[in-house]
């Protein structure tokens, strides 16, 4: 915003910039001064080459879990959002209760609950990976249903009235009238939620489901060198998450252009 930039310039923008740069230099200098140079000089990233297959497999698992969470989440979330639109109070309360329960408790608690407490109740033991997928899909369905609900509410009233006036059957109304424009407005929040669940998969490492964070824990236990592997893993997560948000921005501008052109 041009006016805001102007305001920043007249309120000593230059001085703030200089002060920030000096603070930055001071922080970096203090960091370098206190570094333990023995450790830094002995860092050996080439040693990780041995574990390349394990790291790639772990990352594949992370991507698979993200895909499972996002796809099942969108599917179940859409069903939940449609159920919210049905004029039947008990069903609406049930959906609200479900969504609020999964949105307002930490995924870690849900995960441990499903892995350790649920088998006690049902008598059916689950493997770590099954518990992990159940937990992440349940949480994803709650979060995605909120997004779909907002998307459905953003569809203009005229669409509903037109489909009623034309006598379009209920299922066709959802699949051909309401959901397509709803999903078009939902793309940016859906991508943000995808990044968020990409991050959430790392939490499943508490059950050792074999995704990237589990693998990094195993490698750092085997080599006694946590710095190299954890830094590499952090960079992998950062680069990939950044790529997703970059593609989101591309999609958004492409869609804005298409709308403008129409």
């Amino acid at each position, binding site marked *: 915003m041009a006016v805001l*930039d102007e*305001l920043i310039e007249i309120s000593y923008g230059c001085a*703030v910039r200089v002060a*920030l740069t000096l603070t930055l230099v001071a922080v970096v200098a203090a960091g370098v001064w206190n570094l333990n140079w023995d450790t830094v000089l002995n860092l050996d990233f080439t040693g990780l080459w041995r574990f390349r297959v394990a790291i790639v497999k772990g990352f594949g698992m992370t991507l698979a879990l993200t895909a499972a969470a996002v796809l099942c989440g969108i599917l179940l979330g859409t069903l939940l959002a449609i159920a919210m639109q049905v004029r039947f109070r008990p069903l609406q309360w049930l959906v609200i209760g479900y969504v609020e329960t999964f949105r*307002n408790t930490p*995924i870690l608690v849900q995960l441990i609950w499903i892995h350790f*407490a649920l088998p006690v109740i049902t008598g059916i033991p689950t493997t770590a990976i099954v518990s992990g997928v159940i937990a992440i899909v349940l949480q994803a369905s709650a979060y995605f249903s909120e997004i779909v609900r907002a998307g459905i509410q953003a569809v203009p009233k005229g669409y509903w009235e037109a489909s009623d006036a034309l006598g379009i059957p209920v299922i066709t109304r959802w699949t051909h009238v309401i959901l397509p424009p709803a999903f078009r407005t939902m793309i940016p929040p859906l991508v943000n939620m995808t990044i968020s669940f990409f991050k959430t998969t790392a939490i499943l490492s508490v059950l050792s489901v074999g995704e990237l964070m589990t693998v990094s824990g195993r490698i750092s236990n085997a080599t006694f060198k946590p710095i190299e592997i954890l830094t590499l893993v952090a960079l992998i997560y950062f680069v990939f998450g950044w790529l997703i948000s970059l593609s989101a921005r591309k999609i958004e501008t492409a869609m804005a252009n298409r709308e403008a052109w129409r």
Partner: protein
Amino acid sequence: MNFDFNVLTIHYPAVLDGLLVTLRICLFSLLFGVIDAVFLCLGKLSGRGAGYRVSVFVVDFFRTIPEVVLIFWIYSCLPLLFGARLSAEISGILALSLLVAANVAEIMRAGVQSTNPGQLEAAMSLGIPAHTIWLRIVIPPALQRMSPAFVNFLTELIKATSLLSTIGVAEMVYQANVLGNRTFAYVEFLTLVAAIYFALIFPLSLFVRRAEARLVAQKCR
């Protein structure tokens, strides 16, 4: 399967200790995080120069890497790199305050940049001094617009404190695990902890819903 309340009435003080630790971690990481966030936000608003570039990178980096990776990195790498001993709780607070700093800086920036340009232009053309514009025209409505996003992030922060149980901070989830291992009453303790988290977070998320609806209504008016 029957729900055994006796085990809860005997062992609930340990869970409450955990609750206190959870709240303490939230409080300290908010305190340190918001101070850092002001610097990062200034850097992002300053528009160019080294401060701007570094703030953009820091905000993007700590918003994109998973919280668990950040927590483990700080817990197991910082002591090696700087030769300083950090307790689990201190490293947890450090990790979460970085998380707070990056997210709150982004919320603050969005709040300031959504200032009504018409109001700013009017203020500038009236020759109102810069500090008065900031204090009277930019910051108060920005704070109001920020409040839903900030409270929403607060709920994320409370949920994120549960992750500190993985490095052995004695907060609620850790206590529930320990008590579950000792008494085999996993269902009871985990349900209790889930209920406490729900009771902490649900009012906040209700507030977010109300405040968001109010902002939308304001925009439509």
